[in-house]
C-alpha cells in the first residue's frame, strides 16, 4: 500500500528465469512496514519462490485480509491481481475465486489476528474444503496496527512490551490444521529464507490447502525480552524436523542421502519435493505421529519447523465437486443453459 513508486530498472546482469524475467519483475509496491519487520523477509521469499517457479505474474492471485501481514500482498508481484478483503474473511473470497477459476495460483497472506481470532472460523472451513491455495500466516503474536495487544497465538507467560503477561493458552495454527485434515502443513521462520523458499514453492504446487505458519517477529511491539515471538527467542528455540528441497520436473536428484533420511514426494504437476529428515524417526505422512511429536516439542518450549505434514493423494475442492476441467468462468454461455426447448420440458413438471 505504498505511496511511493519503485523505479523499474533491471540491470542487464541480473539473472533471468525461464520466462526471461528478473526478480525485479516479481516485485510490488514499496513496503510501508517498520524497518526490520519479519513480514518484509517473507515478501522477499515469496518473490524468490515465484521467480524460481517461472510463474507468469498474472497467473498469481494474491489474497489477504486486514492487518500488517495483509498489507504485504501489495509488495510483491504487481502483475498479479490482488484482493485485500475484510478482516478475517479472506478464505471465503479465496473459496469463490478458486471456484470460478481453477487454473490460477492463489496465495493468501494473513496474520495471527486475521487467522486465529476474527477469521478462525473461515480458516478452519477453508481447510475442510481443501481449496487449492497456499495460505501463509505471518505470525508474530501481537496486534501491530492497533499498537501491541496480545493476539490469539501469544504463548502463556509471554510478555507484552509494557510488561503484561499473557495468561490465556495460545491457538496453534499447525496443531489446529493437523486436527482439521489439512493436507500440507509447514512452519518456518521469516529469518530462514533457505527453508522458506522451497516450502513456498511446494505449497503453491500442492493440490489443495497448503498452510505455512511463518514466525515473523514484530520489531516494534514484540521483539523484547520475555516475548516468545522475538527474533532471539525463535532462533534459540527453533527445531527443523523435515527440510524440503524443491526439484523441478526435469531436474535429477543428485545429492545422496542416507536411507531413511531422504524422502521424495511427487507433486501434482510431476515435480518433486525432496524431504530431508533431520530427525530420522519423524514421518511427515503420519498425521497422528506428527501431532504427538509437535505436542512433545512444544512442552519443551521448542518450535518444530519445516514440512510437518504432507498428503498429495487427497482430492481437493474441485476434485470433490467434480468440477469441469475448463475454468467455469470461461465456459461459453451456450453450455450453461438448456435454452427455450429445455425450458418447455422443465415447465411440464409444473403444469
Amino acid at each position, binding site marked *: *500500500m*505504498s*505511496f511511493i513508486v519503485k523505479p523499474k530498472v533491471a540491470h542487464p546482469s541480473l539473472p533471468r528465469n525461464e520466462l526471461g524475467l528478473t526478480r525485479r519483475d516479481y516485485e510490488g509496491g514499496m513496503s510501508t512496514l517498520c524497518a526490520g519487520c519479519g513480514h518484509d523477509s517473507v515478501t522477499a521469499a515469496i518473490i524468490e519462490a515465484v521467480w524460481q517457479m517461472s510463474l*507468469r*505474474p*498474472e*497467473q498469481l*492471485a494474491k*489474497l489477504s485480509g486486514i492487518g500488517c501481514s495483509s498489507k504485504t*500482498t*501489495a509488495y510483491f508481484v*504487481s*502483475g*498479479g*491481481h*490482488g*484482493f*485485500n*478483503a*475484510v478482516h478475517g*474473511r479472506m*478464505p*471465503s*473470497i479465496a*473459496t*469463490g*475465486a*478458486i*471456484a*470460478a*477459476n481453477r*487454473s*490460477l495460483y492463489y496465495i493468501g497472506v494473513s496474520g495471527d489476528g486475521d487467522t486465529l481470532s476474527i477469521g478462525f*472460523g*473461515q480458516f*478452519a*472451513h477453508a481447510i475442510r*474444503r481443501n481449496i487449492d491455495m497456499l495460505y501463509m500466516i505471518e505470525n508474530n503474536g501481537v496486534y501491530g496496527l492497533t499498537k501491541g495487544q496480545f493476539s490469539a497465538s501469544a504463548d502463556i507467560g509471554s510478555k507484552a512490551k509494557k510488561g503484561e503477561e499473557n495468561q490465556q493458552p495460545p491457538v496453534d495454527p499447525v496443531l489446529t490444521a493437523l486436527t482439521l485434515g489439512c493436507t500440507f502443513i509447514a512452519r518456518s521462520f521469516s529469518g530462514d529464507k533457505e527453508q522458506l523458499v522451497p516450502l513456498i514453492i511446494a505449497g503453491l504446487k500442492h493440490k489443495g490447502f497448503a498452510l505455512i505458519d511463518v514466525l515473523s517477529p514484530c520489531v516494534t511491539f514484540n521483539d523484547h525480552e520475555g516475548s516468545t515471538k522475538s527474533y532471539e527467542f525463535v532462533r534459540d528455540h527453533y527445531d527443523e524436523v523435515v527440510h524440503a528441497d524443491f526439484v523441478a520436473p526435469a531436474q535429477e536428484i543428485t545429492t545422496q542421502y542416507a536411507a531413511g533420511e531422504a524422502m521424495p514426494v511427487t507433486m501434482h504437476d510431476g515435480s518433486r519435493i525432496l524431504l530431508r529428515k533431520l530427525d530420522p524417526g519423524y514421518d511427515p505422512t503420519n498425521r497422528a505421529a506428527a501431532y504427538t511429536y509437535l505436542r512433545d516439542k512444544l512442552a519443551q518450549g521448542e518450535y518444530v519447523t519445516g514440512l510437518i505434514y504432507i498428503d498429495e493423494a487427497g482430492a481437493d475442492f474441485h476434485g470433490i*465437486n*467434480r*468440477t*469441469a*476441467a475448463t475454468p*467455469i*468462468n*470461461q*465456459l461459453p*454461455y451456450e*453450455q*450453461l*443453459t*438448456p*435454452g*427455450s426447448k*429445455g*425450458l418447455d420440458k*422443465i*415447465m411440464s413438471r*409444473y*403444469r
Partner: protein
Amino acid sequence: MLHAADAQDRLNDFVIKLANVNGTGSASANSLLMKSIFRMGVPVMGKNYFPSNIQGLPTWYEIRVTRDGYVARSGRVDVMVAMNAETYAKDVKEVSPGGYLLHDSTWPRPALLKRDDITILGAPFARMCNETFQGVRARILLKNIMYAGSLAALLDIDLDIMRAMLGESYASKKSLLDSNVKALEIGYNYAKEHFQCPLPLRVARMDKTANHIMIDGNTAAGLGCMYAGATVGAWYPITPSTSLMDAFRGFCEKWRVDPTTRERNFVVVQCEDELSAIGAVIGAMWNGARAFTPTSGPGISLMNEFIGLAYYAEVPAVIFDIQRVGPSTGMPTRTQQCDLLLAAYASHGDTRHVLLFPNNPEECFYMSVEAFDLAERLQTPVFVMSDLDIGMNDWMCPALKWDDSYRPDRGKVLTKEQIEQLDKFYRFVDKDGDAITYRTLPGVHPKGAYFTRGSGHTQYGGYTEDATEYQIVLDRLRRKFDTAKQLVPKAAFTGSGSHDVGIVSLGSCDGAVLEALDILKRRGLQLDYMRVRSFPFGEEVEQFLASHSKLFVIEQNRDAQLKSLLTLETAVEKAKLRSILHYNGLPMSSNEIVEAIAAELQQRVNPPLSAIR
C-alpha cells in the same frame, strides 16, 4: 346452509383451509387437492402456514378456488378441514357463516366442535385407516389422502385427475400407489354414502389454466439463476431461502453435468455462515464467474460488512433476500417485507444498493436473470427482494418463456487484446461519463492487474488517505447510482393515471391490491396503482407521486419502510402519503386493503364502510 341463490355465486369461488399437524405428510395431500383443481382448468391460490418445527406442531394450508384468477387471500374460510384436535377451538371459530367443517370423527369432540351457523361433517378417518392399512407411519400418511378423497366427493373434484396425479408421484413405487389410491377411494366413498354430495360450494371445469403453471418463487429464481448462466452458488441454509439453492442445484444436476465424464459446470458451496457465503460470491464474481447467494434477513445482517466492500470496491454480487418476519430470529416461517431499509443501505459508511421487487414466481424468474446483468453492468451488489409468501408458496402463473437470443451482459470487462493496447490500466477512471469504469479479470494480462481493496483508494486504484482523491471516487459512486436509475426495471401501472388518489405498493402485496382495486371499483371508487419494481426509483415513480394528491402506501412491515424510502429518495410531499401496513406474518388479504381505504375515503365509497361489514 348456503342458500340456493348463493350457490351459483360460489361456484369456483371459495376457500378451503386445512388444519393439520406438521410432519404427518399433509403437505402432499393438500398439494394434490390444489393441483387437481388447477388441472380442472380452475384458477387456484395456495398458502402454507407452517411452524418452525419438524414434527408435531399445528400447520395450516389454505386453498382459494378463484374463478377470477385472484392470487391473494380473500380473508374468508368456507370449508375447514380440521385434522388437529389441538386447534379445533380456533379452527371452528374461523369458518365464515354458512360454511362447513370436516373433521375426523374417530374421537368425537362435540363440545369443541359446536356452532349453529356452520355445518359440521365428521368422518372416521383414523378408524378407517387402522382397519385398512398396516404400520403406524402409513396410517398417519394415508389419513391425509383419505380426507382429500372425501373433499373430492364434497366439492366435485375430478377423481380421475387425482388418481392420475398419484400415478405421477408414485410412478416407480407400485405398492405406495396402490395404498394411496385405496385411501383416496375410501374417503371418497365414505363422503358419498354419508353426506349430501356435492356441496353447494363446488368446483366445475373451466379453461382458465391453460399455458399456466403452479410454481413457487424460489424454484423459479433458482431456475432463473441457471438461465442467467450463474456457475457459483454459495449459501448457508436459512428458512425460507433454502429451496432456492435446492432448486438451482437440482436443475444444474440435470442440465449441467456431462453425461459421460460426470463433470459439473457449476459449483455449489455450502458455507459455514452467511459471511462466508457472500465472501465466496464476491470472490467468484471478482474472478469473472456469475455467482449468487440466497438468504433471509438474519443472513443480510451478517453480510453487511462484505456488502459494503463489494459496493466500494465495485465487485458485482447477486443476493436473494427471501424476507421473513423479524426482528431478530422473529418468526422464520412467516412472511413480511421488513428488510427494505436494511438492504437499501446495507453496511457502514455511505452505501446504497440496487433492489429488485418481484411480485410473483414468474417475475422471480425474469428478475433473477436481470439481477446478474445489472450487477455486472453496474459492478455492484444487486438484491432480489422476494419473501416467504412468493418464495415458498405455489403460485399460478403463465408458463415461463425463454428468448434464445439472450446473452449475458458482462458489463465493462476488458479483454486481453484491449488491455494489450492500453498504455496503462486504471481501474476507477470514469472514461465514458456514466460513472461506470472498466474492470479486468485476474489471469488475463499483467498490465490489467490492480489491487482490489476496501480501504481508501484513488481513481487509479492506489491506496490513499488524501481528501480530494478519496472524494473523487466516492462522488463517482453517487453518480453511478443515477446511472442505475436508468437501467433498473420500471414501475408497473394499473388504472388510467387520471385519478386523484393513488396506491403505491410492491412485491407480494400486488395480488391483494389488484383484487382490492376491483372491489373498490364495484363500489364506485377508482384509484390508480403503481407497483414499484426496483430501487433506486426512476423518473416514472417521481411522476406518479407528483400527479396524485393522496397516496396509499401499502406494504408488509410495521415501520412503513417503503414509505420511508419514498420520502428519502424522491421529492414526494410526506403529508400526501397514508400507510396501510400489514405485518402479522400472514400474507396480506384483499379485504383489509378495501377496509382501510374505505375507512379513509368513507364518503366516496358506495355502500359506505358500515354496509360492507
